[in-house]
């Protein structure tokens, strides 16, 4: 009996395994191949060496990505706590409300932010009105607010687009966590801060870790957000990769940048997983 079922298993699994080898593993090998060859297919380190020119871009990408991830975490955590404390009906309604914007095309949502942040856009106009009012006061002279084409706008775009990916995993983990643990800690005399630090946060670490990766990875590698909200001054690694493939036609350089990006992200993921394997308190 067992032998038969295992034959069925192999028949069921083989199409996927073939597919995965052809379209997951081989493409990654292609990235490595293009990264270490020149236009005529000869082995070279030149592409890898020329990445040195982009060190600043890579550092900026990681910095902005980290910033967006940390801000998302700070914004998402209280909301996840509020959600987890609500009744089931309200919970499903709020989950729906958080997921709904993700179904709108992300290009258009980002574009919409661009129009809001523009110099004659809604938010800038509103803020400048306040600035003008303040400037009528004695001894106050503020510059007009300028929002679009700044690094801040790029981080805002990242937080906006990927915030749900931070809220939902943390909320899910909190929901599964045993609430009686929190109560026990309170019964044992822990004050609110102690309970939060020693019970709530450690219990939610798996959610934080998966939220962290789900926000960090797309933030670091984005190119649309930085193009629309960051203007020409905020070029990220994703922008350079996109240019190599779509306009500059330097596949080899693009592949080597992608290769480096992939390695960097796998290192980050490995570090994050190490944290989640540990006791948990280490993260804070």
């Amino acid at each position, binding site marked *: 009996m067992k032998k038969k079922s*295992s034959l069925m*298993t192999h028949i*069921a699994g083989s199409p996927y395994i073939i597919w995965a080898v052809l379209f997951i593993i081989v493409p990654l090998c292609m990235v490595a191949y*293009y990264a270490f060859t020149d236009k005529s297919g000869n082995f070279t380190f030149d592409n890898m060496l020329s990445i040195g020119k982009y060190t600043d871009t890579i550092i900026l990408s990681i910095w902005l990505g980290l910033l967006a991830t940390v801000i998302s975490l700070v914004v998402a955590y209280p909301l996840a706590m509020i959600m987890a404390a609500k009744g089931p009906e309200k919970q499903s309604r709020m989950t729906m409300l958080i997921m709904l914007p993700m179904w709108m095309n992300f290009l258009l949502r980002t*574009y919409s932010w661009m129009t809001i942040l523009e110099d004659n856009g*809604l938010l800038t106009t509103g803020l400048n009105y306040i600035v003008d009012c303040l400037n009528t006061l004695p001894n106050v002279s503020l510059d007009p607010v300028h929002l679009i084409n700044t690094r801040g706008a790029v981080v805002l775009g990242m937080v906006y687009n990927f915030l749900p990916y931070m809220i939902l995993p943390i909320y899910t983990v909190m929901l599964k966590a045993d609430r009686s643990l929190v109560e026990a800690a309170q019964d044992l005399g822990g004050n609110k801060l102690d309970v939060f630090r020693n019970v709530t946060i450690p219990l939610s670490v798996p959610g934080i870790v998966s939220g962290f990766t789900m926000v960090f990875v797309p933030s670091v590698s984005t190119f*649309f957000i930085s193009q629309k909200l960051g203007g020409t001054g905020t070029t990220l690694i994703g922008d350079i990769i996109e240019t190599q493939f779509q306009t500059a036609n330097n596949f080899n350089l693009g592949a080597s940048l992608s290769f480096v990006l992939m390695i960097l992200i796998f290192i980050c993921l490995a570090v994050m997983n190490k944290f989640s394997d540990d006791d948990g308190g280490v993260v804070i």
Partner: protein
Amino acid sequence: MTKKTSFGGKLYTGLVFLFLYAPIAVLILFSFNSGKSTAVFEGFSLHWYEELFRDAATFTAFKNSLIIAVVSSIISTIMGTAAATAIFGYKNKLVKTSVMTVTNIPMMNPEIVTGIAMMLLFVFIGGLFGKTGTLGFATLTIAHVTFELPYVILNVLPKLKQTDAHLSEAAQDLGCTPFQAFYKVVLPAIMPGIISGLMMAFTLSIDDFIISYFVSGTSSQTLPIRIFSMTKRRVTPDMYALSTLIFLAILILLVVSNVISSRGDKKNTKKGGGK
């Protein structure tokens, strides 16, 4: 058990939702703009909705998106369900973990890397045969199936784990072939996972821009790619009108599915109580 949310909590929730919905509200507002601008509101009109229905290129792109989403989600659901049962059935630990690791790669990798990796493969293969225009419908579909597969597998696997293994054995003892046992016993049990996997695959496909951007040819524009090419210049409010319509459609779908699933839950709890 449920605590009342404090005023501060409510205010905070409200602010976060304001942040999440502000650009969508702006988008909906400007779809009714009578002027061409997406920043200055001039007056109410349905002009851009009319314009949208006259825009043949957008319509074609939307049709392409739908075709690719339907085809790729069906392929990935069938292959992914088979793969999930196989992963569940593998006795060899090493095979099991290595298949799962490979499955996780497309989800962990940045989309831009997945996109260019597939593009390089297609261009390379095209180069071997001396062809240049390899990118098109076929490559788009292959790429979509590839990034949808992990989501289908991860939706089906937990359902398989919940299913009682003895049921399938019992069916086989009663004379079913292994395939019949799967078809008649296991498949109905894992159906909810398959359906949520299918729906997820479909929405991921419709929404995907980054991967599609690298593997599509000029003849196979999908809606997100068309939107992207418009954002290079100036987006006209007819795109806003389109996304307003999509937003409404999704809202209605979600509300309906929410009502149905909450009814289903009630039924299930009743059934569970009757055991």
